[in-house]
């Protein structure tokens, strides 16, 4: 029976693929196909056909391997999962449609064939969902890593003076990391003044403020002074409205101003050298 179906599909692959394409084009006014080149559509369709034949003629293990290969490829292409699922459903629809038309399917054998085709469809569906979720997990993981790399390193700028530029949203996890890097950096570089630059932080709410205050306290404990720089005017206003007390801080609007003050604290200044 498997072999019969396999050879039926093999012999009728082209008309089946034609009706598959038609089904897909009818789907939401062909929105799915607009993103694919004709070559891509053809090769995907053929792959689906081969996969079907493969499931009927090869053993389960081989089929499982092929299915995984196919799923990973789909996910890598970045096609939406709903598109791939639609493609699969429509492919089986196209087979039924064709088998009905040619009289291959009759009342006696239809139950068995439907089961056979479902045996093909179910593992493929599972595998595709799995491949997609793996890709997504990986993406999330990578983005997390990218975000951590972005987070907060303490840069020694001058002797005794370091800067930590903060860029992006600060969540609980990043806040911890900022604190760690800050303290380690202060000790390692023997910083006396640390400038926390929040120019790149989009929102300073009570949580972010709280973390900044705690970080400054901790910096004080290891014997250095923490300055808050890069306070944009709108951020200054929201901090005031929130009633957050930053009186213990030296704060400046720009990093440049902060740096001048930091130099003053460490008894230095920048002077212009006259040309000789």
């Amino acid at each position, binding site marked *: 029976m498997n072999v019969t179906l396999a050879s039926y599909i093999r012999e009728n692959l082209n008309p089946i693929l034609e009706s598959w394409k038609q089904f897909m084009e009818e789907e939401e006014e062909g929105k799915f196909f607009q993103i694919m080149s004709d070559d891509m559509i053809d090769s995907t369709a053929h792959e689906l056909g081969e996969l079907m034949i493969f499931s009927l003629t090869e053993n389960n293990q081989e089929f499982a391997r092929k299915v995984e290969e196919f799923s990973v490829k789909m996910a890598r292409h970045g096609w939406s999962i709903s598109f791939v699922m639609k493609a699969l459903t429509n492919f089986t629809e196209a087979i039924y449609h064709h088998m009905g038309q040619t009289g291959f399917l009759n009342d006696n054998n239809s139950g068995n064939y439907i089961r056979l085709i479902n045996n093909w469809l179910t593992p493929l569906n599972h595998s595709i969902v799995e491949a997609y979720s793996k890709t997504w997990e990986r993406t999330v993981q990578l983005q997390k890593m990218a975000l951590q790399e972005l987070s907060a390193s303490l840069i020694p700028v001058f002797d005794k003076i370091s800067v930590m530029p903060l860029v992006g949203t600060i969540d609980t996890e990043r806040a911890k990391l900022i604190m760690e890097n800050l303290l380690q950096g202060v000790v390692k570089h023997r910083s006396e003044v640390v400038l926390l630059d929040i120019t790149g932080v989009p929102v300073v709410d009570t949580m972010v403020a709280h973390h900044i205050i705690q970080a400054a306290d901790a910096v004080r404990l290891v014997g250095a002074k923490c300055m808050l720089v890069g306070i944009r005017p709108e951020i200054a206003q929201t901090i005031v409205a929130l*009633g957050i007390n930053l009186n213990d801080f030296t704060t400046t609007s720009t990093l440049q101003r902060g740096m001048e003050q930091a130099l003053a604290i460490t008894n230095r200044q920048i002077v212009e050298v006259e040309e000789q």
Partner: protein
Amino acid sequence: MSIESSVDIITEWDIVAARQLGRNEAKEVGFGTVDQARITTAISELARNIYLYAGKGKITIERIADGAMKGIVIIAADQGPGIPDLRKVMEDGYTTSGGLGAGMPGVKRLMDDFKVDTEVGVGTTITATKWLR
């Protein structure tokens, strides 16, 4: 007339999504940078309170118009524990979580209009409005 959109608050990152939605809406209504920051910060506070104290809930942003006046309404709704002593919560520095206790009174100051509906064991709905001037 009102247009509304919302974000479910379940994870910490939903707070960022709610904020982003609020900022976009505020921009579209025509708020300037300072008011955008006020609105975004208010959303951040309310969304984080939901996340911390109620576990989950929803932030809805509504654009409103009253005659020639335009504005934005933030609705923060949860079915959490509710707030037993609302007067205390509105005092600066009151916190049950070791925070700054500045969120609720802060949002009241950041926005033009602020209303809390809360019932212990049922949940909390906070409505805060900002008018475009």
